[in-house]
């Protein structure tokens, strides 16, 4: 495991440190994946697998896209827009059958959805500390399996071979002064996650997210983009209310109900484009620490707004 400032830096180091000529990505990817790729490769060699409105990848399209010659499949384990959790083992099998590396962005899932790199056959796993791992902002990293030939793209002091400007050691990905307070905060968060249990956290988050998405789906004029109520979820539930832009809905929730929800594209431009959402969505995020009362209050607030917009 190598520490970075977050998933974005980790993904930059991974994408730039591998030899990638042709890749497959899903429409659910975050800009942390899409922008490093776009900065390096033309669109013509970035194959896109579409997603449905819950954020699940189209399995048939993924199967068709993963052919010999593809260097890597980069897949969001869990959508930061809909909370949908992808089938990692299915994707791993397709990627490896095509001879591609399987790179997983676990920013939204680490700590809330069980993942095992060996069991799930993941070659590279990228994570952030500040979401479900309960660490502070500014810490994240990536984990590599032994066979992955990643070259460093940042160089500097590592605390080893200090007498040489050309160190012999490989895998010197942590250069310069490390974020020790961030790592310590992440360790505290990880202890909490491990003591509580990822499965316990996952069940709680899925139940809260399911209750929220189910109640919002039942409201007239509300369009929900989320995993089904009974499915695993990383905790994100997005929605729109007919007649209001996401920014307006976010404004009303903030200033009338004291609720802070992110509005707009959620750094997932291809998913928004695929869903035809030119102004994005409003996104609620629940975690293991979210009181159920907060979820119920949001449902009531949206109910009240829907009533007010239809009057």
């Amino acid at each position, binding site marked *: 495991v190598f520490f970075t400032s977050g998933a974005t830096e980790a993904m930059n180091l991974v994408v730039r440190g591998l030899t990638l000529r042709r890749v497959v990505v899903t429409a659910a990817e975050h800009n942390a994946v899409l922008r490093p790729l776009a900065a390096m490769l033309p669109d013509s060699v970035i194959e896109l697998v579409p997603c449905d409105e819950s954020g699940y990848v189209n399995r048939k399209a993924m199967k068709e896209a993963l052919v010999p010659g593809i260097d890597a499949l980069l897949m969001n384990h869990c959508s930061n827009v809909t909370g949908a959790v992808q089938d990692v083992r299915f994707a791993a099998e397709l990627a490896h059958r095509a001879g591609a590396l399987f790179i997983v962005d676990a920013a939204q899932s680490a700590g809330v959805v069980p993942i095992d790199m060996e069991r799930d056959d993941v070659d590279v796993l990228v994570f952030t500390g500040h979401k479900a791992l309960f660490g502070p902002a500014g810490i994240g990293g990536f984990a590599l399996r032994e066979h992955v030939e990643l070259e460093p793209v940042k160089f500097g002091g590592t605390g080893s071979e200090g007498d040489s400007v050309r160190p012999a050691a490989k895998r010197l990905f942590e250069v310069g002064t490390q974020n020790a307070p961030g790592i310590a905060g992440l360790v505290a968060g990880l202890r909490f996650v491990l003591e509580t249990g990822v499965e316990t956290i996952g069940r709680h988050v899925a139940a809260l997210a399911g209750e929220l998405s189910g109640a919002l789906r039942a409201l007239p004029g509300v369009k929900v983009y989320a995993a089904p109520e009974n499915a695993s979820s990383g905790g994100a539930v997005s929605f729109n209310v007919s007649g209001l832009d996401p*920014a*307006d809905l976010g*404004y009303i929730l903030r200033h*009338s109900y004291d609720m802070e929800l992110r509005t*707009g594209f959620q750094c997932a431009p291809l998913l928004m484009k695929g869903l035809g959402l030119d*102004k994005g969505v409003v996104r609620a995020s629940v975690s293991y620490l979210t009181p159920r009362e907060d979820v119920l209050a949001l449902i009531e607030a949206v109910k*009240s*707004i829907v009533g*007010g917009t239809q009057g």
Partner: protein
Amino acid sequence: MTITKVERAVEPCVESGYYGYYVHFSAPVDEDFVQALNPLGGLLFLKDLPKPFYLLRGSRFVLRGQTGDAFSKLGVEVNDPEILEAIQKLLTEL
């Protein structure tokens, strides 16, 4: 009604293509003020919300707020002080 203060919003709304500001007024916004916005652009006024919400889409700016609050959120397309000043002038002349 006068503008007492204009401050940059902590959340700048750049993702949506706007630069965000909070415009503070000398008194809470009421329905008459909202109706007076009408000539300045497309006005949406949702009176039936617990706190009535208004949205004005003008040329290169958006103004949103709620009656009862002594502030509005202003988004301008280009972060140009002249545009900001022109919008403030429009609001002051209402």
